[in-house]
């Protein structure tokens, strides 16, 4: 598959405009977007997320991710993993997530209210 064949997803769909403007969208091939996330695995992995992303609060300094669209979360995490979106904590944590783990996390958070 050529580079142009990759799906280029606009990061801005899920992000505050101020954070998205200066950053490039990640390259997320269709087969990566198509991975069906393992919700139970995602629930375990989410332990690392919910220390900061509260399921209860409305955002503030750290956005709420519970209930977000699955693809938005997948794209956002790949953007951090590819260092196309800048945040030191998120780049560090997403950098060690596999595509399967990202899919699992997205599937789990999408199940929350």
């Amino acid at each position, binding site marked *: 598959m050529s580079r142009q064949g990759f799906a280029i997803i606009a990061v801005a769909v899920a992000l505050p405009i101020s954070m998205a403007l200066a950053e490039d969208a990640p390259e997320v091939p269709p087969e990566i977007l198509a991975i069906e996330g393992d919700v139970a695995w995602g629930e375990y992995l989410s*332990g690392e997320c919910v220390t*900061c992303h509260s399921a*209860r*609060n409305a955002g503030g*300094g750290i956005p709420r991710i519970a209930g977000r669209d699955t693809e938005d979360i997948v794209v956002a995490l790949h953007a951090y993993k590819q260092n196309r979106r800048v945040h030191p904590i998120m780049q*560090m*944590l997403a950098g060690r997530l596999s595509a399967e783990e990202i899919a699992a996390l997205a599937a789990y958070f999408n199940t929350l209210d």
Partner: protein
Amino acid sequence: MALNRRTFLGASAAATGALSAPYVLAEGSGKPRVLVIGGGAGGATAARYIAKDSDGAIDVTLVEPSRTYFSCFFSNLYLGGFRTIDDIGHTYGTLAANHGINVVHDWAVGVDGAAKTVTLAGGAVLPFDKLILAPGIDFVEGSVTGWDVSAQNKMPHAYKAGSQSELLKAQIAAMPEGGIYAMVAPPNPYRCPPGPYERVSMVAHVLKASNPAAKIIIADPKPKFSKMALFEEGWANHYPGMIDWIGEDFGGGVVSVDPDRMVLIIDGEETKVDACNVIPAMKAGRIAELAGVTDGNWAPVSATDMSSKADPDIYVLGDASQQGDMPKSGFSANSQAKVCANAVRGALTGSRVYPAKYANTCWSLIAENDGVKVGASYEPTEEKISRVDGFISQTGETISIRKSTFEESESWYDAITADMFG
């Protein structure tokens, strides 16, 4: 509740009157029993996750002497006037009401690893299949010459938050104009590596407004400290001339105090001080030693699941553990607790056990809206929990970045305390 495989199996087992799972280790009890000692970032999180994720298949008891937990993290913000004492106080009612955890307010005073029981100060003897120790820290006696816990009302440590924090705040407020605030900083390793320096920043913030001629002395046995460049830059910018850090090279480790005379002695030179925060050397909370799982001051654990190297049915979380590269912090303890909870649940009920991953971030506030952070990711190796990757705030960052960092820390506080007690 959506019907999934786990609830379906549970329901069918209950219907046949055979609720106990095949993995139950204890004889005669209906469910496996997990006993958690200590209700802080490690213990409360572990208790909550085991109870929440086991859907009632495991009996969870949490033993914690205090009815209100005052978080050590953000207690410096209380000293700085950015939080009230109530803001950092949390109770255990939701853990009992929403998660079915048996919360017992008592001291654990003995562990019998062979009999698998814990004795409480009130006389009760509690059995366990798995024991999780998360007792936090105690102080090493004699580590600061002239100071012991009987002197903590004159020279508070304020390193277990609550009444000690309130006392130190009152002493700062009572300092005479142009008075001297002293801190005796602890040697490594200790709880919250940037904590003493965030505290100095918060004290300086208060004094700058209320007592601008006051001075701060830090006697430090270490040659350097966490986020040193960031703090030194912040102190020079916000509190010029107010803070004097005396490190190991200048006698900061040769320190004694005389609480009755309110005197600090550094390398033989006496200084009369008006408030003195003595943060002694630290060790694992006493119950870890009583359980026989310590080696020296700390309790060595397996990097894969936080189980004690001395007893595989005892786990040690957070500050009390000796696990490798993670700093002793509430964030670390919370991270370790989730790995431990997953492993304990797997061992007792056969649920899936996932590979361990750990992370930590420590935020510090230097002045209003001037937040900095340091963090890292970790994974288990044969030898220890090993650092994989990390980051730290940079000197010279914009006001906007620092404000965002502080706002992050506020959200993190709300989230982690919900993760512990929610």
